[in-house]
């Protein structure tokens, strides 16, 4: 479970090699060693576990100035789950009275955990005002969210090869219903029956990032109850962060001996990112020609499947005329990280600037990426390139 005290031993597994310096987008901008995982772990240990130094505003600042991008964890050969420890530290900090902003808590509970369009619109506006941001940086909500557009079961074309549940994340539901439509169509077109369970809420990642364990537990409970009852071969999501949540995080919001664990395990085992799932299943329908050059941005939350980073490349390689031009560092973070970019605006923009440069240098017309937050955060700065989900791109080639 994400209880900080339980990580004391794991923190000592850090070899202090310092290799995380090469991976941390925050450190690479700030060039302060106190902002790199090796030091964050030391600090968390001193301030929150051994309590040899007081919990000062600077301690909190260091713990919060982290994208939870998992780059350190993926780099760490000592296998220290750095991002998880930072999350646990935030949960610990949130125990202090008034630590998690009550408005944020309200958004987590009432908006992300209960999907109602009216609620989203009004609350998103309130958040925007409260943190004083321009409309430019706030995503425009889709006129009709995906769950109002498509529901129920979508029959496969031809012989049924698999039956999957489609877990629709908040990003796709509220911002990019086009991704949802593409996922459903491409899967069905390739012989996959798609069930869209109703009543699904947020995966819990945004709440965890705020250190709001209770909200995360609430959403996990709601989702797992629904998903555990489905008779499907797999559960797919188009979002790498939702996938990471179900594969590696949701079991950790409850104690190991919690009865929920029994229900979580089979759900977790069935989770796939949609592109990855399809690349493994194989396409039955040959895509048509779609001339153009694209580049692929690998979302940071990719460590939960060894093949999820390469799946879009493999699938799109089957489109005649579509040409992949790799950018300099496809795996480099874009800086968005949920709502991080709102609260660390200058830093996030610096991190993004490298990505934008790399993208522009490819000369590609389209950027492909699975994460809706990356998509939004890149697209608002890209005038000449469109950002799409890989299955959105594929849907285009199918003429769907």
């Amino acid at each position, binding site marked *: 479970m994400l209880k900080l005290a339980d990580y004391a031993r794991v923190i*000592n*597994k*850090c*070899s*202090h*090699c*310092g*290799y995380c*310096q*090469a991976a941390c987008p925050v450190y690479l901008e700030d*060039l*302060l*060693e*106190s902002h*790199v995982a*090796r*030091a964050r772990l*030391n*600090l968390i240990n*001193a*301030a929150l576990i051994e309590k040899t*130094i007081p919990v*000062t505003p*600077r*301690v909190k600042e*260091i713990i919060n100035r982290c994208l939870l991008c998992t780059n350190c964890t993926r780099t*760490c*050969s*000592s*296998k220290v789950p750095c991002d998880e420890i930072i999350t646990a530290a935030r949960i610990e900090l949130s125990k202090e009275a008034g630590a998690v902003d009550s408005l944020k808590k309200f958004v987590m509970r009432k908006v992300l955990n209960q999907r109602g369009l009216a609620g989203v619109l009004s609350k998103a506006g309130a958040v925007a005002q409260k943190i004083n941001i321009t409309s430019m940086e706030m995503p425009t909500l889709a006129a009709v969210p995906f769950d109002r557009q498509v529901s129920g079961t979508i029959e496969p074309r031809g012989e049924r090869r698999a039956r999957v549940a489609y877990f629709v994340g908040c990003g796709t539901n509220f911002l990019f219903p086009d991704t949802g439509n593409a996922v459903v169509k491409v899967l069905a077109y390739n012989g996959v029956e798609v069930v869209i369970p109703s009543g699904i809420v947020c995966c819990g990642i945004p709440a965890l990032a705020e250190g709001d364990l209770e909200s995360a537990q609430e959403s996990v409970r709601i989702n797992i109850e629904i998903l555990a009852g489905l008779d499907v071969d797999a559960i797919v999501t188009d979002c790498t962060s939702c996938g990471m949540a179900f594969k590696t995080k949701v079991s950790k919001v409850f104690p190991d001996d919690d009865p929920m664990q029994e229900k979580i395990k089979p759900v977790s085992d069935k989770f796939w990112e949609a592109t990855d799932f399809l690349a493994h299943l194989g396409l039955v329908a040959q895509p048509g020609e779609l001339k153009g050059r694209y580049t692929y941005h690998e979302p940071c939350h990719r460590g939960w499947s060894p093949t999820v980073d390469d799946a879009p490349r493999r699938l799109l390689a089957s489109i005649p005329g579509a040409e992949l031009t790799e950018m300099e560092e496809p795996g480099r973070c874009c800086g968005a990280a949920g709502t991080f970019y709102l609260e660390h605006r200058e830093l996030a923009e610096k991190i993004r600037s490298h990505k934008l440069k790399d993208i522009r240098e490819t000369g590609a017309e389209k950027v492909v990426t699975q994460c809706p937050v990356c998509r939004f955060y890149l697209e608002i700065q890209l005038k000449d390139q469109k950002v799409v989900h890989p299955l959105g791109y594929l849907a285009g080639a199918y003429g769907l």
Partner: protein
Amino acid sequence: MKGLSRDLGQILDRNRVLTDPEDLLAYTNDATHYFKRSMPDAVVLPNTTEEVSRVMEYASKHRIPVTPRGAGSGLSGACTPVHGGIVMDMKRMNRILEIDERNMTAAVEAGVVLSRFHRTVEKMGLFYPPDPQSMSVCTLGGNVATRAGGPRGVKYGTTGNYVLGLEIVLPDGTVINSGGKFVKQTVGYDITRLMTGSEGTLGVITRINLRLIALPPEQKTIVVSCESPEQAAEIVSEIIARGTVPSMLEYLGQAAVGLMNSIISPPLTVDAGAYLLIEVDGTRTQVDYDTEVITNLCREMQPRAVRVIEDEKEAASYWKARSNLYPLLMTLMERVITEDLTVPRNMLPQMVRMVQEVSAATGVGIGMGGHAGDGNIHPTILQFQTSPELDEKSQIAIAELLKKGLELGGTISGEHGIGIHKSEYVAWELGEAQIELMKRIKKAFDPLNIMNPGKIWPEGGE
């Protein structure tokens, strides 16, 4: 220290002076997780030589210790600020100033990260061989200050063989330039060489002129599964004796390969007593020829298996795993102490036997893995659990290893340096007269003993 933060804030801008304990905590040690840590009083992040010089001038005036720091990836505690004072973090001086293709030289600031430098020159068809395995993070300044080496040392030598010139800030703030862009020089004492490996005890390196060579177009990786550690060592000695020079020649114990398998793809069968990981490089013809010579030679000695890895991605996974060996060990251990004993290469079989004997006699687990081609296979103390008794036994084992290694004609440190890790053994290797000479040199550079005091000699070189 009263007023320190204010004074330093007048030399550099205020946000490049750290004095909050939450920040200082990040600068208390290097990659030696097992050593005592020390808090500095302040950390400065200079952007220019001028700023370094002014900080040194100030520190001299007030007799404040200064410890230069690169990435803090050292394995000897050399950048731990044992007497507090100022840590000079060089990582913001990270410009590659010049790559002179016609002259085959480069000029860099000391904080440039090695792997970035590698990528930059390799894109131009040039090659900077030194490859300490921490290359994704370590700085060129740190490499010069420790005279770092790596697997490619067997063919191409170590950092020391590539440094042509330095810009140095002396402890009193004076800036001097030693060497230059030329490839040879005989004008007085070789200060460049002296600074190389000085572990931050003589001055701060701010700029470096480096020699480059042409990038070999082809590489090939070979894995040899050996019957025993002794056999692996014998094969290494034989390869060296026959005059074929691989570009890398690494020794790996069975346990090491077991751990590396989480990165090696597809994984290697863990059934051999020890492994050799070899790379040859050069033109196609050269690579094919060397591959044949080495594989034939290995087969003559009848190891379990010799395999040439044709797939580039697979080969890369071996070398990536190799560079992660130290952090990988921590998944099994509570504590890992890497020793740096290096022997003449014909003595490797004796060394391997000796390490096993010391391990058996002291009851301390000692693994081996590293740059065999260099005679440097890093006997490594492995503690599954920590305890005061085991610590004591480990100290005895380390002393034994070093003493016996010296008897084999070796040195107690091939590349990591002394720092605080091995200062008590320096006298065994150098003898009193040589240490006295070194201390006089130290005094000539640093009469006030403010440059990284407490390193190399137990009493800090006063």
